């Protein structure tokens, strides 16, 4: 019986890309999204990645009779796009859910940075996502992963408050120091929250370096054993689009994944666990102190990919400044747009870090320059503000009218009271 474990978790997300939205459109046209690009890209990724990979995972789960397990986190934005543009992808995820060997994690519905902007919005989106997962897959998520694995002490506290006892984040070098990511840890200020830390070396060996590595499944098991000489668990967390999209099929990535469970199980050192199982199976060894938020992005493993320059901070501030007014208006259509506008991707497009991770940034970016991304986004925000203000003003008018209606009744009542 294997005493050590591998925890495989895949992130599934597609941004709701914005159309070219010009100054002249402000106040006139409130459809913000590039439906054509969103549909085209989603259908392409479905053909290259989601459908073949889901099929492969289903085969492997069935073949290994309970010994092979995986976890997914699927953003609400991605789920909406599946429903609209490619329902067969959703069906294939449902088939995976039906095996009972797949754990679905909770995250923010809109793959947003709400944990850095507004606690109440953060909670709202997590609840919305959990409800959506339960509605589609029939299971309530018990483990949480934040957008881009963003984590800090205070975010951990809120997550635990919401009822999650397991959370996934990055085994960032500057946080871990000499400690190994191959154990279960707890939050510093919330010791009841258990943390699973991504092994970025072994994860990126697949996600970023597979084409260069040309590694076989057996060799990779060797690497796993070497890396986890000390430790209980190796957390391999990566984007699902790694398979077939970032690493195209001709690199042999699908064959590698097909062979991996066999190679691991035959060797016998490791078994497979899902995140919630992992934190039940292994005792935490220590707590981890994270003052400033960490993430899995870029060399810095911080949040500067989304909030690193003044354009991003300005856009971010302007969005979350609307929160209160939005709560008063409470309009579902506005709320949906507000959510989609919070997707972290919009801020990522405004990133001006061109050096170490420029290539990665370029690959994911529909805009030629961060400036175009910013201008387009701010134009959309301006239109959204106008709609919000109009709704708010309409509400005031209605309230005054209602009060005026009530007013005479009050006077009458008072008069009656006097007579008595």
């Amino acid at each position, binding site marked *: 019986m294997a005493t050590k474990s591998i925890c495989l978790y895949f992130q599934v997300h597609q941004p709701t890309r914005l159309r070219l939205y010009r100054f*002249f459109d*402000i106040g*006139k046209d409130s459809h913000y999204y590039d439906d054509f690009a969103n549909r085209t890209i989603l259908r392409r990724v479905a053909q290259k990645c989601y459908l073949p990979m889901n099929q492969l995972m289903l085969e492997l789960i069935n073949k290994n009779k309970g010994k092979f397990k995986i976890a997914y986190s699927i953003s609400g934005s991605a789920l909406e796009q599946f429903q609209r543009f490619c329902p067969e992808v959703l069906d294939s995820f449902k088939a995976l859910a039906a095996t009972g060997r797949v754990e679905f994690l909770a995250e923010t519905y809109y793959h947003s940075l709400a944990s850095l902007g507004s606690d109440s919005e953060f909670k709202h989106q997590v609840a919305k996502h959990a409800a959506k997962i339960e509605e589609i897959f029939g299971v309530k998520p018990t483990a949480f992963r934040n957008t881009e694995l963003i984590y800090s002490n205070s975010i951990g506290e809120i997550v635990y408050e919401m009822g999650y006892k397991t959370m996934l984040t990055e085994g960032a070098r500057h946080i871990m120091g000499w400690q190994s990511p191959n154990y279960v840890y707890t939050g510093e200020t919330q010791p009841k929250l258990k943390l699973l830390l991504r092994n970025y070396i072994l994860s990126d060996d697949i996600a970023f370096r597979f084409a260069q590595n040309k590694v076989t499944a057996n060799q990779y098991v060797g690497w796993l054993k070497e890396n986890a000489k000390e430790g209980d668990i190796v957390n391999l967390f990566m984007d699902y689009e790694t398979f077939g999209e970032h690493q195209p099929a001709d690199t042999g990535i699908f064959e590698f994944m097909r062979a991996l469970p066999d190679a691991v199980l035959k060797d016998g050192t490791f078994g497979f666990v899902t995140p919630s199982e992992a934190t039940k199976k292994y005792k935490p060894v220590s707590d981890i102190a994270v003052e400033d938020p960490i993430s899995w992005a870029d060399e810095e493993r911080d949040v500067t990919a989304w909030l690193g320059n003044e*354009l991003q901070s*300005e856009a971010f501030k*302007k969005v979350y400044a609307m929160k209160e007014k939005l709560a008063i208006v409470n309009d579902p259509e506005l709320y949906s747009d507000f959510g989609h506008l919070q997707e972290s991707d919009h801020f990522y497009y405004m990133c001006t870090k061109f050096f170490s991770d420029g290539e990665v940034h370029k690959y994911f970016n529909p805009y030629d320059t961060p*400036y175009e991304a910013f*201008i387009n986004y701010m134009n959309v*925000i301006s*239109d959204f503000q106008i709609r919000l203000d109009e709704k708010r003003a309409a509400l005031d008018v209605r309230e005054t009218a209602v009060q005026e209606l009530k007013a005479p009744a009050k006077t009458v009542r008072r008069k009656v009271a006097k007579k008595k």
Partner: protein
Amino acid sequence: MRVLMFGWEFPPHIAGGLGTACEGIVKGLAYNGVETLFVMPSASGDEDQSATTIINASDVPVDTMSETVDEFLDKVKFIHIGSNMVPYANPEEFGKLVEEEKRRQVKDFSISYGQKYKFSGKYGANLMEEVARYAMVGGTIAMQRKDEFDVIHAHDWLCYYAGIAAKELTGKPLVIHVHATSFDRGSVDNIDTRVYAIEKRGMEAADRVVTVSDLTRNIVITRYGIDPAKVVTVHNAVDFSGRENVQVERGVKEPVVTFLGRITYQKGPEYFIEAAAKVLKRTKNVRFVMAGSGDMMNRAIHHAARLGISDRFHFTGFLRGADVQKMFALSDVYIMPSISEPFGISPLEAMRTGVPSIISKQSGAAEILNYAFKVDFWDVDAMADDIYGLLSYPALAHFSARMGYDEVNALKWNGASL
């Protein structure tokens, strides 16, 4: 009187204000009974020839300059050398490169002798070469049509060599028309010295130098050392004929304050942003638009974001054709905070659309516009005051819009061309 005129562009295919101004001048001259032959490097055939005869330099083979080709090359070849400078070459290598380049050029020019040269007529990387070739072709045209004109008129530095060549070959008087100088394109300590040299040579060779404003006249006299007696100012006008006022549906409710032009150092974009931030501190009921593109655009975007006004300060990118008219029609206040502007035709267009304008005192247009608000480009407080006043006091806005409209309609090329 008949004029041989050298220009670089002519409507409808134009990149800047030069072509528009040339058309106005030609029409104004025609009104006053002066015939013009208008030479341009690359005509496309759809130019309006009602007031002039267009000669396409790309159609004319070089053939009448045989005895002067060598002499001519001596004068112009230095322009080309240097435009292909190789960075990081050591002095020996560089010397070799220059020699090779000289040989290549002589060869190229000899080949082109007797042939036509297809000009791009644009402002591309081989601009200097086109300028030199334009001069050769220009000389040829002047010789061929020697008896059809009395005066030579050349617009801006791109055409000065053509003008000089025509004068040297025919002996007829040369008028140089200065729409802009190197000092309007770069800051004082950062000008293109090659262009400066051409400009100076053109001004020196000219019998008369026409400037578009007294501001430019001063630059010509002080910075190029030209005899004040031969420099005269003729202010620009605008031809609004055939232009309908476009009606646009407004999207935004708030009044719009617009900057429209290249976003470059000379246009003073940062002063506009600072003034906008000041106004926004007082009232939220306004939007600012910076329309256009340029090398300072990204800096301007950062600037607005840093001041936290990006949801009220919009960028449109480069606008073309109908979008420019649309932008004017959407505007309630127009602003041109240029640090240096030889003339600046855009406030005239704004006022013609009924938009009150604020312009910098450092622009040529400030010399002739009485009903535009004038501020020093650096005085963002005054700028903010004027914007706020125009937005808050309708009487002021109506008055300046109405008076400004009448004022610019009275400016005619027919008068300017005299």
